[in-house]
């Protein structure tokens, strides 16, 4: 009997520990999602339309390139891995000093704080940070402020503390432009007075979902020819988007003239559903995911708005250099997404993957 009680207690404690751990892990998942949002949230323009104060900075680096640090949440996300590549590229191009350091926080808040502290003790010339959460790095940013090290926020702004500039994309704009790209495709495909578009939304409540949804709504409001037929969450997931798209097809069938997806993974699912229903309508996404862009070669009316994290990093470096040179820089720089269609799909893939 005592043995039995012992075991039961063990199981119960195990379950409690497990629940705690599980909560922890789902928290992690949440963070991961945040990072994912981050990857959704950030984008890069094609430099030329960055329209920022730092573009001229490149030439100013001739003397001796600054020693800098870039801290990102997690290399698990392609988005940040591409930032690392851009960072290394800038290093080999001599835009930044050889001893510049890239920090991966492995999705841990405390690691990111220590990363920043390490950078401060290394007395970097300026610090670039893509924060895991806006609030989690406040103290570290203040330390940097105290040490007179300029801070540039990338992708996600920090809640407090002084930053030189905040460089990120505008998800409202991305949503609107992607929806309007879809409208263009629909107009090319056939003449009609109005076009019915369905939207596949991201995870309910995520700020990216809200912003991109707002952009979709703006596009519908601005264009008389555009009608919102239906909207449903696809959870940013291919499988979920496939299920929802099948149900859309059942319900609305040929009334659907186009599909706007809040990310490219869902566009893959929408494509799959349309294909098995023998339908061919325009589909646009956001992000510039390789697998989605590869579908463009067979599909004239597929498109996306690509995020170019490389541009984000170079813009941040340029901005930092300009600031060190004593120039005034913009408080916040919006980076435009790059429109990718069949025309430039292969160039895009060659250049970035």
């Amino acid at each position, binding site marked *: 009997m005592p043995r039995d009680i012992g075991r039961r207690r063990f199981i119960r404690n195990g379950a409690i*520990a497990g629940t705690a751990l599980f909560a922890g892990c789902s928290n992690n998942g949440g963070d991961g999602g945040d990072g994912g949002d981050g990857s959704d949230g950030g984008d890069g323009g094609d430099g030329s339309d960055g329209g920022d104060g730092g573009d001229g900075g490149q030439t100013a680096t001739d003397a001796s390139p600054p020693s800098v640090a870039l801290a990102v949440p997690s290399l698990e996300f392609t988005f940040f891995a591409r930032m690392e590549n851009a960072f290394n590229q800038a290093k080999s191009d001599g835009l930044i000093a050889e001893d510049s350091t890239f920090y991966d926080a492995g999705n841990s808040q405390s690691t990111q704080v220590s990363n920043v502290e390490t950078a401060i003790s290394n007395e970097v010339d300026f610090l670039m940070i893509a924060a895991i959460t806006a609030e989690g790095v406040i103290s570290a940013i203040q330390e940097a402020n105290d040490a007179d090290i300029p801070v540039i926020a990338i992708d996600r702004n920090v809640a407090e503390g002084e930053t030189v500039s905040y460089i990120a994309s505008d998800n409202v704009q991305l949503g609107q432009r992607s929806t309007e790209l879809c409208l263009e495709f629909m107009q090319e495909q056939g003449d009609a007075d109005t076009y019915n578009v369905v939207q596949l939304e991201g995870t309910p409540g995520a700020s990216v979902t809200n912003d991109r949804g707002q952009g979709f709504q703006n596009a519908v409001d601005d264009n008389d020819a555009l009608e919102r037929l239906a909207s*449903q969450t696809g959870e940013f*997931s*291919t*499988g979920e988007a496939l299920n929802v798209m099948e149900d859309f097809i*059942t319900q609305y069938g040929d009334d659907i003239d186009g599909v706007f997806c809040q990310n490219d993974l869902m566009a893959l699912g929408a494509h799959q559903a349309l294909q098995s229903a023998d339908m061919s309508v325009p589909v646009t996404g956001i992000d510039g*995911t390789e697998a989605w862009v*590869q579908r463009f070669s067979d599909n004239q009316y597929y498109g996306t708005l690509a995020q170019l994290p490389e541009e984000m990093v170079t813009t941040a470096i340029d901005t930092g250099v300009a600031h060190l040179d004593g120039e005034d820089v913009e408080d916040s720089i919006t980076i435009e997404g790059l429109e990718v269609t069949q025309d430039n799909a292969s160039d895009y893939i060659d250049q970035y993957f």
Partner: protein
Amino acid sequence: MLSSVVSGSSLQNRLTASEISRYGPIIGLVGLFVAFSFLNDRFLTVQNQVNVLRQVSIIGIMAIGVTFPILCAEIDLSIAQVMEVTGLTMATLAVGARLFEGSAVPVPVAILGGMALAAAFGVLSGYITARFGVPSFMTTLAVLFLADGFGLIVSGNRPIIGLPESLTAFGGSQVFGLPSIVLVFLSLLIVSQLMLSYTRFGLYIYAVGGDRTAAERMGVNVMAVRMGTLVISAVFASIAGLVTLGRLGSAVPTMGASLLLPPIAAVILGGADLFGGSGNMIGTLIGVLILGILQNGLNLMGVAPSGQLVAQGIVLMLAVLANVVGEN
């Protein structure tokens, strides 16, 4: 189990209560079916019913798999990640991309490779649970992380497209006018139910799930049974991964996301006891269909995500309530 020794009027009450628990799920399913038929004119079309079956197949296969450990009073929290990593492994092996860059293998080998990986995960959590008495809640949670990590390594965290047709055929083709994914689901369901009803192993699962100590005293190899259920669950997850490749037409590193709880919820919705010993595959089928029809119907009606979540919450709560009313 005690109901056989209870006598008189309390027997009467118990019967009605247990009838609710036995027929609750099927009544719920029929109720949803009728309700949606009235609420939406496209719900009852053949095409839509085929769609529903197709949409529930992946969750269904995972639910069948996880029914085994649940009947045995175990739980498998790793199914979604095992499904993901094995699907990604099959895809990368068959295409020869990412981790296996340039070393493509024939499709059957790729499939077996994925299933072997799943079995290895099942053996790992199963052995540690059965041999050392660590709750399967913990061991499969550990495997959840392991499998998730391997999935990222194998796929390089990027979708894989251009899968060979022989690989996608399991989940993406038509056989006799029916989607192959549905046929895979239904055949696995039948095989599993036969296994539970007519094999010694099936009987032992109920025995161990009902009362482990008693089963042990009767000479059942409890360790083998507990480990076996977790291996079965992992292998079924890998089959789910295989058909997912066909359904999506690609392998996506996030394809297992949010697929952990629906299969487990489906099993419980179908009337299985979370603490082991009772339940069957027909119940699981009903549970899976309840979840699938609910989502399909609400989608057709254009109910917003928030409303869908509320509806799912209500249905789940009613179902588990019916379960417990039957128990006591």
